[in-house]
């Protein structure tokens, strides 16, 4: 064991650097102990405590004190001191700006006017949404499973700040042409939508976009989702009211359409009064028993704007022969589309069994295929537990499609396919082979409502052609597709 002590006058480094230097030198092979420090009283005491013998010095001297193995080389250890004292090179690029960890933090980085889109698990959605509202921004909450009490609290707070809460469980919104969630690319027109239903909203977007190819100004400028519970008694239509106010204030909106299930009676009354007070006319498109279907709502909108309803496009009608059995099988990804078809089918065929039944006794159990007319919504919460929405992952529906096809009593298969932002890049490529396989043994009529626009990323025409080539008959209107399917089933029953 040997000690080496040297004083370096004129050398200076701050104590923190020197602590680090000492640690680095200590790690050098052969070094038993090392202390590099300015020769202050305190440091000299520490050095003496370590057993070093320090020559007379001033506090402006740097002391290098090394204790080495007998075999170790002093020069090597001193080289390690010099290396450790050399300034570190600055690292390239600014690695110090990390992405924001909360919605509040993200909104501090954007300007005013930004919209927040929250799709975290429902248990955490309220917290993120509050960030947006507190900062005075609108928020769309795609997440479901948000407790209704939290929805009420969010919306009451938003109302106090003049902000808009779209959701929870809001699948679709279009704000100034920007589609959020599952939304279609549309030509902006002079219609504003307020929608408590995602796929219902998408159906109207698609139909009005189609009509807009013929009629100038027909098209949706904004589609503001409000979430399926907004018009319930508990929530009281807070977001619907704010959405109406916004659309009314927009000079570029000539007509407002509200799409929702029938509201709670007291909410309906208040809504009617609110709508009446607006300067902009409001078309109430309520969905449910005894109400118009979505296509009829679109047609009423066109009529109000002075236009005749166009012929809603159908392709592949030649593919369809007679029903191959007595039963109708509806397999849907869109909840509102399933509802709409079920309402129409109930009138024509009687009760329909479903996982989202019109009345409790019609509920399906675990088996989604029973010896009765059935309609299944694969987007329902119970069927999306632990898997992606069927607009993204069609596996489950394709399996049921094969089962339905194998059932000899299946007469007609009714499907929907929804295009737009957020959906699969090429959903027809996944559905077409399943349709083809379903029709391999028997030419079961497969009627598809294909909800989308020619501007959607997937391309309406290409998707339609792929489905037609697989043997399907493709409608833009879900009501029209349903009517066609019912006509075929009724034909078989006669």
């Amino acid at each position: 064991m040997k000690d080496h002590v040297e004083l370096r006058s004129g050398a200076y480094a701050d104590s923190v650097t020197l602590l680090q230097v000492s640690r680095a030198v200590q790690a050098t092979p052969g070094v038993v102990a090392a202390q590099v420090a300015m020769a202050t009283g305190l440091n000299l005491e520490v050095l003496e405590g370590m057993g070093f013998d320090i020559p007379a010095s001033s506090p402006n001297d740097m002391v290098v004190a090394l204790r080495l193995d007998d075999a170790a080389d002093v020069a090597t250890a001193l080289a390690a001191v010099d290396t450790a004292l050399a300034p570190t090179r600055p690292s390239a690029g600014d690695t110090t700006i990390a992405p924001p960890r909360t919605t509040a933090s993200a909104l501090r980085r954007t300007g005013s006017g930004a919209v927040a889109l929250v799709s975290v698990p429902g248990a955490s959605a309220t917290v993120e949404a509050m960030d947006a509202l507190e900062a005075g921004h609108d928020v769309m909450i795609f997440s479901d499973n948000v407790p209704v009490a939290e929805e009420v609290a969010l919306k009451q707070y938003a109302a106090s700040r003049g902000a808009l809460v779209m959701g929870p469980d809001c699948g679709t919104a279009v704000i100034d042409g920007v589609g959020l969630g599952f939304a279609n690319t549309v030509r902006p027109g002079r219609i504003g939508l307020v929608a408590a239903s995602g796929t219902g909203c998408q159906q109207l977007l698609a139909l009005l976009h189609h009509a807009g190819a013929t009629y100038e100004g027909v098209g949706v400028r904004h589609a503001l989702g409000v979430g399926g519970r907004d018009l319930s008694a508990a929530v009281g239509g807070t977001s619907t009211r704010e959405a109406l106010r916004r659309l009314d204030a927009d000079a570029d909106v000539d007509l407002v359409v509200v799409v929702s299930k029938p509201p709670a009676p007291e909410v309906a009354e208040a809504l009617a009064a609110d709508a009446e007070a607006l300067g902009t006319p409001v078309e109430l498109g309520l969905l449910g028993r005894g109400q118009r279907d979505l296509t009829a709502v679109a047609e009423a909108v066109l009529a109000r704007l002075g236009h005749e309803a166009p012929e809603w496009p159908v392709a592949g009608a030649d593919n369809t022969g007679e029903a191959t059995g007595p039963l109708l099988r509806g397999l849907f990804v869109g909840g509102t589309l399933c509802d709409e078809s079920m309402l129409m089918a109930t009138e024509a065929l009687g009760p329909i069994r479903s996982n989202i039944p019109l009345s409790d006794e019609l509920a399906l159990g675990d088996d989604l295929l029973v010896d009765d007319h059935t309609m299944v919504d694969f987007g329902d919460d119970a069927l999306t537990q632990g898997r992606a929405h069927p607009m993204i992952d069609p596996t489950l529906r394709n399996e049921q499609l094969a089962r339905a096809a194998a059932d000899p009593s299946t007469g007609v298969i009714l499907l929907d396919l929804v295009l737009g932002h957020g959906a699969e890049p090429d959903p027809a490529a996944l559905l077409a082979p399943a349709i083809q396989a379903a029709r391999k043994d028997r030419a079961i009529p497969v009627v598809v409502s294909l909800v989308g626009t020619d501007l959607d990323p997937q391309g309406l025409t290409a998707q339609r052609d792929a489905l037609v080539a697989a043997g399907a008959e493709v409608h833009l209107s879900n009501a029209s597709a349903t009517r066609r399917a019912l006509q075929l089933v009724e034909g078989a029953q006669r």
Partner: protein
Amino acid sequence: MIPVAAPIRVQARLAAAADGPRPVLHASATAVYVDLDGWCVGLVSASATRVPCALWSTLPDIAHLAGRPVVVSDGTLAIGDEVVRIGRVVDPRATVVGRHGIPRSEPGILMTSGLDLPEDGRLTADHVATLVGRGPGLTPLGDDVLAGWLATRAALGRPDAAVTDAVRHRLGATTLLSATLLDCAIRGEVLPQLGAWLADPTATSADALLAVGATSGAGLLTGARLAIRSTTQDAWRAA
């Protein structure tokens, strides 16, 4: 793939265009303009002015596209091997005109002082003849004044048939980009800064408009003010 927002008519023109190459009129770090069958269509970067005849991207700059061939295929523009995908369609028409007061004593805009513009703002076919194509650059100053005037009259719902016709007849006298922007202006299609000033004429929105291009913003603002004055004079006379 370059995602863009497309003004309605740009999308429609591209959708209707036949497949094939198109000549590049102008390419810089912020914009590429091509001749799409007699109408100028551009691709602009995030920092460029969002003119109503261009596809609006969020790319900070598009210098790497300069010199690449431009091809239309199935309604989509491809520049070199980059496909320009329309992800959103926007309506560039100005429809809202805010409270502009009576603009009698506004400070003059230096650049347009030599253009011999009418005090009452009422442009005629004679003015059009002297303005179209007047000035240097891709969008001559005279055209900017006319574009500001035409777009503002359209936004006010008071288009002027005589001036519009005169402009249409002289579109060949200026650059294709400028002619296209005049065509847009006739329909009330504007760049966002003009739309914002028309909707809400504040010092901030005026400054933002004046900052467009070298002289374009000044020309547009001059034209827009003339158009507003021309209709205000009408109102006075009627009263």
